């Protein structure tokens, strides 16, 4: 006892603190070393929580162990009941931790707690004078909701339970037969874990490990099962058997701890969330080496479809959360560090700390009027206190095109055209005459067009700080030179970012984030009438370059242009039309100079102040700006052959870009956001948790741009591509526009949790927008959701395999205001002196509303090794902001926007996580799958359908469904034509032409009777599978992603395989109909219409695909002198399984006319951290 008394509590604590900070530094170093462990969702945050509780335990356990060791000699003899141990103590506003240390100092007992619900920082007071320990403990139990259980010299502290005594005592016997010793280590770092409970299963007999993680225990026999448990780690059991040394490795239980999830203006514990919220595994995503943050969501989250509009560097990425809800804007709202943004291309993916997707109204209603497309919350990395750490990451890659179609060579092409002529005309066949001409080339235009692209990425970052100030700063460069020749397809981005947080006091915190970004896109025609389309079409008999003897050859423009152009005149003879005139894509790639630059300044400053004694009320104000400038500059250089055209002044110039011209524009957009929130978070009596939030937000936007253009540049070198150097007499244009809008909102949110089991959350937001007239300005967006953590119920406490089960349901409304400004007013335009009504306004215009319901269940099985989530959602978008075209009898005016139309999206989402580790081999798998049914339920009476080129939106069908004729075969003979087209005498249809379904059977194939829906561009199914694994110093990640049940209109296929103009074909043309019975799927080759000109089901191809998006292997070199080095290789898009015959099934265009395909890439990279 004497010794114990000398061991002063305050000394213990300071000793503990030394220990704590040592450990912290150690941990920090680990955190910075990417490869140390398997990283899963929101890892850093988790880690911090884990670390904190672990540190506390280190401290407490250290103390206990020391006390325990010191007391060891006497303790066994002392077997007095708590009732008989008298004590005088005055605990005055100490933390529970300190109070227990004091008590252990004053008595012979070791206190420990193995219940994470016990808050060791809680301030406690208790005063007894010469009372029994029982009295004291009961007093504390009542006051602080604690339970004390004494086993021999140990008193275990846990949360008070409704049943059972508050203070229990138990003495275990002295009849142990086997002495077991061992060491418990953490799988994270293979270091010993102090403070682990080692319990004989079925008893309360046990011990705890010492500071090195060692323990010794005596057990009754070989059949004894030992249970190792430590907060934050998975509980493990082992049967003793004949072992006397049992070492064990514990694995962190990363889901057991509550992740803190940012859900909009505030944070919630993941376990209390009741809406459909998905958290992106940012660490895993970073291994995909994506250039655009939006791509981070691809394949990661059920119900989120991410599509690159094309594979061209810098082209946009489209995100759809739970389908397409409206005819207008379906883009999600991005919130970056609390500031809304409609575009996130300025972000560097490596700067992202967390990404959360709010998928249903319960989660997103707090963002009200702009949230109907879903909300993606992004927080960027910030500094943590500790030693300043530096990181350098560099990778470089090579990119190449894959899966190109086999085009015909010159010989095959000529033979095909010869046949087409014979199938169409009589008389001398000009192709037969041309066969084998000496000036013919044999060009594979696709091979000529594509080259190997290169990418580079460099990121340098530094972060650190002390208790008061933490900072992070990073600089990064990304550059990609795409896969088309001549290097005019490039994207470069430079980002700089600084984040500073300052704790002015323990109540007052301010901080700022600043991002500067500069991106440059060298743009080529990447879709529609693209270079790729031209390369598919252009005749292989044409060469890339002219012969130098050609009189039209010039050094500046050595490219071939019109087929076998003769300088004697325009369109003399058949030559031009014999080999269909398509521009030379190599020349176009060479002459394209179209650069878009964007300069973005994005940032915010915030201040947080905590009120009340327990800091439960927090005020936060956040002011953000999103300021971007763009500069577009396109110089359209004159090239190509002179076709004799052009106005008098331009005679003699090449037909392309005649006259040459420069088009330049500058623009700016400033969006300012100011939001203020009051957040009250309080737990009452440990049973009632409240989280209340109220706030306001004001957003204003102003955009303007100016543009100018001149033509007829006599010198076209880059140094002269400025406005002043162009002709000043003719074609001198300038323009300027501006627009502005504003949004003001009130919002509130309330969550209530009872007994950590019953959860309910309500949100309400009111928005006023300048886009609507004063009488319809306000929109109101409520949501309510509830959850039940069934696994917390006592009737499930015996079900061992079910660790967690939560049921959730939600309902709510969201809005959409994404229409042009001023649409409620009737406006007159005066352009080029033409005065006319631009658009009739609709003063009754109001918000589009999306009513959403969601039910979900989250399962955690086998100690949360396996997690499964299932969701069902049903979203009805109503009052859709529908542009109604007025009858043309009032002239050609812009459509008036009306609230009309309803679209329903519903579907299921499944997510599965599995993680496991076998000694050094650790792995995790994440799989997700979502179904979607999209259906238009209502349109406006004046708009029975909305027709696009190949699509139609109509009630009872998905949005933008493909609409056209159904192909039922190929006419094999005249008799078949005569009977099928009995109502169409005098038709020009020939055997070998496409046979369309005559739906009404009238013998006429007519547009209004015989067309039907032939496919949907909205996938029924989206899915992704990702995996992470590590073994010792090796690590591995993989991502597969795919969609199913989707069609895409492949206009490229039409033009290369079915067209009746002399374009090039793929080798599939060899399967064309050539006499009765030869084919029932491919029409004859001909120069007359074989039916391919009709929009038909042949071209609405199945565009389902399954793609290996990414695979990465990494190796960590043993760190020396605190420097961690990791090397990695990555592969992207290594293979794709699809039936789609276009270049890339992944494209956002409804009509694929030849889209720049995604490239296959191999990357090599290195991370250095110190």
């Amino acid at each position, binding site marked *: 006892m004497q010794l114990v008394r000398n061991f002063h509590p305050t000394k213990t604590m300071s000793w503990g603190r030394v220990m704590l900070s040592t450990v912290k530094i150690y941990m920090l170093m680990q955190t910075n070393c990417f490869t140390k462990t398997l990283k899963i969702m929101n890892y850093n945050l988790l880690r911090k929580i884990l670390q904190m509780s672990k540190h506390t335990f280190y401290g407490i356990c250290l103390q206990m162990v020391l006390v325990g060791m010191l007391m060891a000699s006497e303790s066994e003899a002392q077997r007095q009941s708590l009732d008989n141990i008298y004590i005088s103590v005055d605990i005055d506003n100490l933390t529970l931790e300190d109070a227990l240390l004091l008590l252990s100092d004053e008595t012979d007992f070791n206190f420990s707690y193995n219940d994470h619900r016990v808050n060791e920082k809680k301030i406690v007071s208790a005063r007894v004078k010469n009372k029994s320990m029982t009295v004291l403990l009961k007093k504390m139990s009542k006051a602080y909701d604690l339970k004390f259980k004494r086993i021999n010299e140990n008193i275990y502290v846990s949360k008070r339970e409704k049943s059972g005594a508050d203070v229990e005592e138990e003495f275990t016997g002295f009849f142990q037969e086997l002495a077991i010793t061992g060491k418990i280590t953490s799988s994270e770092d293979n270091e010993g874990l102090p403070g682990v409970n080692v319990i004989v299963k079925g008893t309360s007999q046990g011990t705890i490990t010492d500071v090195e993680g060692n323990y010794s225990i005596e057990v009754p026999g070989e059949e004894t099962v030992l249970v190792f448990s430590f907060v934050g780690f998975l509980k493990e059991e082992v049967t003793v058997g004949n072992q006397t040394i049992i070492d064990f490795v514990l694995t962190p239980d990363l889901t057991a701890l509550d992740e803190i999830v940012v859900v909009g203006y505030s944070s919630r514990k993941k376990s209390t969330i009741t809406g459909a919220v998905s958290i992106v595994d940012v660490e895993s995503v970073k291994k995909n080496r994506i250039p655009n943050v939006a791509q981070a969501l691809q394949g990661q989250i059920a119900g989120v479809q991410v599509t690159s509009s094309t594979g061209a560097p810098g082209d946009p990425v489209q995100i759809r959360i739970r389908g397409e809800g409206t005819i207008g804007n379906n883009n999600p709202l991005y919130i970056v560090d609390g500031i809304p943004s409609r575009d996130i291309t300025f972000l560097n993916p490596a700067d992202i700390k967390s990404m959360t997707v709010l998928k249903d109204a319960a989660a997103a209603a707090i963002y009200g009027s702009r949230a109907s497309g879903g909300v993606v919350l992004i927080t960027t990395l910030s500094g943590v206190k500790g030693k300043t750490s530096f990181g350098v990451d560099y990778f470089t890659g090579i990119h190449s095109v894959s899966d190109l179609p086999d085009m015909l060579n010159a010989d095959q092409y000529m033979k095909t055209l010869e046949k087409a002529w014979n199938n*169409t005309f009589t008389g001398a066949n000009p192709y037969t005459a041309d066969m084998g001409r000496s000036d013919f080339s044999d060009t594979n235009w696709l091979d000529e067009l594509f080259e190997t692209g290169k990418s580079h990425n460099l990121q340098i970052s530094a972060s650190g700080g002390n208790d008061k100030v933490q900072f992070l700063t990073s600089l990064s460069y990304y550059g990609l030179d795409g896969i088309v020749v001549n290097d005019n397809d490039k994207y470069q981005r430079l980002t700089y970012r600084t984040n500073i947080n300052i704790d002015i006091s323990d109540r007052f915190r301010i901080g700022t984030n600043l991002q500067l970004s500069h991106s440059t896109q060298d743009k080529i025609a990447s879709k529609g009438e693209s270079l790729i389309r031209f390369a598919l079409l252009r005749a292989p008999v044409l060469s890339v370059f002219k012969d130098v003897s050609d009189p039209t050859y010039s050094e500046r423009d050595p490219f071939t242009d019109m087929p076998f152009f003769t300088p004697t005149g325009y*369109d*003399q003879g*058949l030559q031009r*039309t014999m080999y269909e005139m398509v521009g030379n894509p190599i020349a176009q790639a060479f002459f394209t100079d179209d650069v878009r630059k964007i300069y973005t300044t994005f940032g915010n400053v915030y201040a947080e102040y905590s*009120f009340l004694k327990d800091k439960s009320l927090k005020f936060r104000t956040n002011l953000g700006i999103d300021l971007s400038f763009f500069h577009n500059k396109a110089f359209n250089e004159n090239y190509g052959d002179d076709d*004799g055209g052009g106005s*008098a002044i331009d*005679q003699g110039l090449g037909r392309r870009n005649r006259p040459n011209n420069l088009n330049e524009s500058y623009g700016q957009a400033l969006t300012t956001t100011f939001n*203020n929130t*009051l957040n009250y978070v309080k737990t009452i009596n440990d049973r009632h948790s409240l989280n209340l939030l109220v706030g*306001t937000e*004001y957003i*204003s936007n102003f955009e303007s741009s100016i543009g100018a253009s001149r033509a007829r540049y006599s010198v076209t070198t880059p140094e002269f591509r400025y406005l002043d150097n162009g002709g000043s007499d003719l074609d001198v244009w300038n323009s300027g*526009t501006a627009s*502005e809008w*504003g949004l003001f909102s009130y919002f509130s949110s309330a969550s209530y949790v009872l007994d950590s089991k019953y959860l309910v959350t309500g949100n309400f937001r009111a928005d*006023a927008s*300048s886009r609507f007239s*004063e009488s319809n300005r306000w929109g109101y967006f409520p949501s309510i959701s509830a959850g039940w953590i069934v696994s917390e119920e006592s009737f499930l406490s015996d079900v061992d395999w079910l660790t967690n089960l939560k049921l959730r349901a939600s309902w709510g409304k969201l809005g959409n205001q994404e229409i042009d*400004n*001023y649409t409620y*007013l*009737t*406006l*007159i335009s005066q352009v*080029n*002196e*033409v*005065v*006319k009504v*631009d658009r*009739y306004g*609709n003063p009754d215009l109001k918000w589009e509303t999306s009513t959403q319901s969601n039910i979900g269940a989250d399962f955690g099985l086998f100690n949360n090794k396996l997690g499964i989530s299932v969701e069902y959602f049903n979203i009805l978008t109503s009052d859709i902001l529908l542009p109604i075209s*007025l*009858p*043309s*009898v*009032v*002239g*050609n005016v812009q459509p008036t926007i009306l609230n009309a139309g309803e679209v329903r999206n519903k579907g299921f989402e499944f997510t599965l996580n599995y993680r496991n580790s076998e000694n050094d081999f650790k792995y995790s798998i994440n799989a997700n799958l979502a179904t979607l049914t999209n259906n238009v339920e209502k349109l406006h*009476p*004046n708009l*029975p359908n909305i027709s696009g080129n190949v699509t139609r939106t109509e009630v009872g069908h998905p949005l933008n469904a493909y609409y056209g004729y159904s192909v039922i075969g190929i006419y094999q003979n005249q008799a078949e034509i005569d009977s099928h087209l009995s109502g169409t*005498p*005098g*038709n*020009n249809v020939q055997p070998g032409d496409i046979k369309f379904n005559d739906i009404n059977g009238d013998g*006429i194939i*007519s*547009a*209004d*009777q015989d067309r039907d829906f032939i496919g949907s561009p909205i996938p029924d199914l989206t899915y992704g599978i990702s995996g992470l694994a590590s073994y010792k110093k090796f690590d591995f990640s993989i991502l597969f992603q795919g969609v199913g049940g989707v069609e895409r209109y492949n206009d490229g296929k039409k033009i290369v395989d079915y067209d*009746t*103009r002399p374009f090039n074909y793929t080798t599939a043309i060899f399967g064309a109909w050539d006499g009765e019975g030869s084919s029932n799927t491919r029409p004859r080759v001909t*120069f007359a*219409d074989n*039916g*391919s*000109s009709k929009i038909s089901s042949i071209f609405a191809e199945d565009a389902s695909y399954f793609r290996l998006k990414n695979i990465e292997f990494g190796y960590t070199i043993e760190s020396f002198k605190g420097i961690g080095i990791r090397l990695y290789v990555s592969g992207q898009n290594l293979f794709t399984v699809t039936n789609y015959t276009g270049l890339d099934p992944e494209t956002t265009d409804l009509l694929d006319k030849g889209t720049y395909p995604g490239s296959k890439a191999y990357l090599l990279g290195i991370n250095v951290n110190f």
Partner: protein
Amino acid sequence: MKNIYNIIIVMFVFTTLISCVDQLTKEPIGLLTIDQIDASPTVTTIESSVLSSYDPLKSTLNSIVPGWRWDLGTVFRNDIVLQDMASNDMDKKWNPDGDQPWMDEIVEFTFTSENQAFNGIWVYDYEGISRVNLAIGFLEDDQVVSDSGLDPERRKQLLAEAYFLRAFYYFDLVNNFGDVPLVLSPPESFEEAFSVSVRAPVDEVWAQINTDLTDAKATASNDKYPDVSEPWRVSKGAIIALQAKVALFNEEWSLVLSLITELDGLGNYSLNADYFDSFDANIKFTDNEVIFAYDHRSNETPNNVNGLRSPVGWGFFAPTADFVAAFEPNDPRLLFTTTADPGNKFSPKIVGSTDWIDFGNKIYIRYADVLLWKAEALLETADLPGAIAIINQIRNRARTSATIDGSAIPPGTLPDRGSSTNASEVKDWLVSERRVELGFEAQRFNDLKRWGTAKSVLTALGRNYQDHNNLYPIPQLDIDKSGGSITQNPGY
């Protein structure tokens, strides 16, 4: 207490934010509201409202609906498709192919109401009408006119132009579609746009055309070019000629004759010596024959060049064999109308030049056409010698014209028609003379309908012409847009 202050500060921040709501009323940037326009129309506003009313007449590509909307049939004014292709004169292209199959449907008469040709002409004509209505609204309002300071004489001329143009567009609509919505002033709201979308009976439309032309004539001057610097503006001659054409289409033969006499009384028009002079870009507005044309000019803003050169270059607008055969041997008019040579796909009349360099005007009314109306009216009023004399006048001009390649016309080409007392024989002469004289000028299908020969002529060529094709279908798109308040013609 400190907390209370804090809370007060927070409340203050919140309440000051409420004033942000006042910031939400944004005035449109760069667009005028109706009030702003009505308050202060200037002379420029009024002038440009009339000027822009001419636009739907031009052949400039994408001038009314931008963006290559082949799907809407609005890339160029479709009258050439609906008149020349629909008749037996013109094929879509020199070689059949799958390009623009909607034109093939017109050729074959297999179209439906969704065929964009109908939408194209409908949109062009009604866009013209809506622009004219805005102009007439300004010009008829004394207050607006006096506030703007518009010269009263100028007002008269502009009114004459506006009334003529409205009549012109309705004339095109009533011939193509029969009953059509009669919109005579700009709707005030989008609801009103729907309420005016109801078809008016043809009689009402004809009556409105006559009223507008009468009003136009009342304020027009007698000059051939009322504004010499802008010779393309509507003249009194054009107004009278259109009145005569209206009378012709309504078979009011004596009215036709009296109106042509009135036209001749102006002394402004006669046949050109050379057939091609009416079309030749190099001598436009210096000839004697053109009465009303759209003036295509290069290097203007907005672009209003003759865009039909492009489709000609792409191989559109090929002659049918039947059309080529309709020309008598060595008739020089053939090669100005079409090269009739698949190796040289060209039409000097459409392009307005004999090469690809200059681009001519779009001719709507020329004196040769007027003379042939007169011949038809004489024929119908039993003046056969009068009719034959005019036909011979036309033939004489043709055979004395220069040929496209400068070659001499062999003697005996296009001999005068002899005298005849057989009215149907003279009618045949008239019919074939109109066909070759006015080929590719967007006249033919209307002529076939007027003569009641469309069915026999077209079915003989294997075209699927039915009786109900006498009127084209109302474009389905506009029926849909009106929510069905615009009804369809029978048979579609």
